[in-house]
């Protein structure tokens, strides 16, 4: 093996360690007691404990937080993708009055920081009784995820030749058949990438999720704040909760990984 390739292997290995270290550290913190964490520096926990994970799994407040978060994230992803698919198709296939402006306007929604919308959303949802429901957070997140989805999907769909549409029509297929059985499967990768981005935005967003919920639909990111108190920080439980919050992201990546790789490779994101 040449010296150069050996060097590149070392660099690669170093980079992997660099990426994995925070995750490894999170996991070791989750396996240690608070006294242990604050007391000694250890690379490998000498007295590992599952008490922190037990707290998360047995306390209804904790797992309810996960359930709440997952429900609004799924709701948001579903709404965003199902609204963005037809919209992106129209933008990719039709020219109509103001189409470019409308398309750009969608993007401008992404330019405003979420904090700008806090008060209007809060008042709106309170007045129609949606405050403190997963739907409120899902809809609020749609303001950001729908434009994003339309942009991602439009890019992919424009890359699909219009001849395919024509061929389907000539073959006598209905539009619905063409769209669901021919067009969507072609854009599988695009949908995978879109789902990934919607999920990730909604999962990690704190500001809107915190403001639009009280006690019923409280997301996990808010529940995590209870580890900070006037008697110090509950590092172990916080780390255990963080480990659990990483899992859904890993699961999403796992399920859409094939599409994701293709999607990213096409360079449309």
């Amino acid at each position, binding site marked *: 093996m040449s010296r150069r390739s050996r060097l590149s292997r070392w660099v690669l290995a170093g980079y992997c360690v660099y990426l994995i270290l925070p995750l490894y550290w999170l996991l070791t913190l989750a396996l240690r007691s608070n*006294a242990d964490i604050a007391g000694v520096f250890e690379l490998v926990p000498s007295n590992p404990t599952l008490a922190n994970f037990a707290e998360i799994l047995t306390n209804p407040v904790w797992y309810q937080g996960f359930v709440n978060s997952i429900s609004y994230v799924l*709701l948001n992803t579903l*709404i965003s993708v199902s609204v963005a698919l*037809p919209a992106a198709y129209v933008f990719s296939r039709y020219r109509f009055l103001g189409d470019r402006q409308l398309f750009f306007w969608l993007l401008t929604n992404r330019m405003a920081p979420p904090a700008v919308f806090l008060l209007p959303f809060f008042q709106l949802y309170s007045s129609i009784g949606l405050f403190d429901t997963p739907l409120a957070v899902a809809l609020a997140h749609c303001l950001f995820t729908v434009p994003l989805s339309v942009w991602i999907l439009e890019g992919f769909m424009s890359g699909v030749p219009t001849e395919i549409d024509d061929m389907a*029509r000539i073959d006598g297929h209905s539009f619905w058949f063409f769209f669901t059985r021919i067009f969507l499967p072609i854009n599988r990768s695009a949908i995978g990438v879109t789902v990934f981005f919607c999920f990730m935005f909604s999962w990690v967003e704190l500001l809107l999720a915190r*403001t639009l919920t009280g*006690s019923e639909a409280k997301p996990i990111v808010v529940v995590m*704040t209870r580890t900070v108190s006037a*008697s110090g920080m509950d590092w172990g439980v916080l780390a255990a909760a963080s480990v659990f919050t990483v899992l859904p992201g890993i699961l999403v990546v796992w399920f859409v990984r094939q599409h994701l790789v293709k999607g990213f490779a096409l360079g449309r994101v």
Partner: protein
Amino acid sequence: MQLAQWVGSINRSVILVAAVLGLGACGESNEAAKTAAQADVDYAANAAQWIDAEFQPSTLSRDQQLEEMAWFTQAAAPYRGMTINVVSETLTTHQYESETLAQAFFAVTGIRVNHDLIQEGDVIEKLQTQMQSGENIFDAYVNDSDLIGTHSRYGYVVALSDFMAAEGADVTSPTLDLDDFIGLSFTTGPDGKVYQLPDQQFANLYWFRHDWFSDPQLKQRFEQRYGYPLGVPVNWSAYEDIAEFFSVHVGEIDGQKVYGHMDYGKKDPSLGWRFTDAWLSMAGAGDKGIPNGLPVDEWGIRVEQCRPVGSSITRGGAANAPAAVYALQKYIDWLKAYAPEQAPGMTFSEAGPVPAQGQIAQQIFWYTTFTADMIKPDLPVVNADGSPKWRMAPSPHGPYWEEGMKLGYQDTGSWTLLSSTPLERRKAAWLYAQFVTAKTVSLKKTLVGLTPFRDSDIRSQAMTDMAPKLGGLVEFYRSPARTAWTPTGTNVPDYPKLAQLWWANVANAVSGQVTAQAAMDSLATQQDRVLARLQRHGALGDCGPALNEERDAQYWLDQPGAPKPALANEKPQGQTVDYETLLASWVRAAGEQAGAQMD
């Protein structure tokens, strides 16, 4: 492509989305069915069961407990089947309420309570959102009494004195015994009305390693070097000497590096508490007066009648007066010279558990909320028999401090009701607030959370029995000295807006970007700017700010009281007191006080 076909498919998508939206709205619980099921519940039997299984010990007899619970059952009858939402910060005490007392309340009254626990900052944020929007988010909040000046001025908070006398009379417990709450003066506004009901209370005290302070060899070395005995420091000079003694001259005990001081200094909002939680009053920056200095308090804010008139020295305030600058400078000097190397990079939460690791000899600014974590077995600061190697004692005071001034921080998390909460829900929440502070449950709650708030509990036999394990907590609360520890008072008209100015300015001084004097000047100017804005806004009523005209600083320094002119010698002779002598004097004074009350 056929447009009609396309529109048709879009329609189908819309229906799909609408169906998804509809799903979200199906979460309503069937309250009516629950109410019907509750009609047959034997609340008296439930109460008896809870009293026997959980609410022991108590300062009430079993019959008195049953009677008190029977009142709750009867008063709650109109609200049975309701579900209310209340919120508090995360503390062991509130955890106990959320997990145990909320269940007991449901068993005794039939009212379901979601007692939410979130970070203190988030509680304030929800409270502010509700105050400003008028939308009911929570039916009651446990909020620190530091906000009393804010609550009593803005008019969003229900004055409990009025509520108990009028619309809340039928849900106010006859056994509430308001005078028994030791923090009641903290939750009383300048108008004499009670705005909040104390729920838990903790103090900021001096913490030290009693075992090292009793070591004859160390005692001898200290006395030889400094000319007075090693003991609980009475003034900051002694604290500084002891800090230097352990960090510089002792250096190591049993092969382990030791430090004479612990603190924190990271640029973080928690750095603000290090100052607004009465640090300036310990130095002696404010005026005499309990619970807070009048006319100038420990935030350096001067009031006339109840109107804040300024915090700069040029307006009669003391936020940038010599005593305040001295307080900041000493904090920085000690942090850099005597605390562990990592301390300046730590936040409140990170620094809190450090003394429990066994390398710290003393800490001038220590919260009693850490007590429970400091008495766990196997810690380096706990003896084999479970007794602590450490003690807590009154905080030492700076050279500007005078007799009759507050000497430290004590805070009471208190039930706060907002006028934007619908009356029925507010009444149900008020019942819960009284339940978790009722004498039937309060002693047990105190033993669990170690945040005593009722005088009767503090004087109970159960607390006497527990005292040896708590390192002086019980003795402090029983002592008459306790009244010199108080929270932020009524001089501060808008706690959230003013509190956020502190940490950034302090951090600039810690990092050395500006001098202590410049940091406090900037802070005082910013505070005055906020006060001026509140004055222009005019929403704070008769006790809103009305700034003094600026005039020469010397004018105000020449007046009696704060702002006080600089002392020629800011490090007088160090003074210490023997811990056991101090304890004995407390016990004696407490006895005399009890005797006087009986007369």
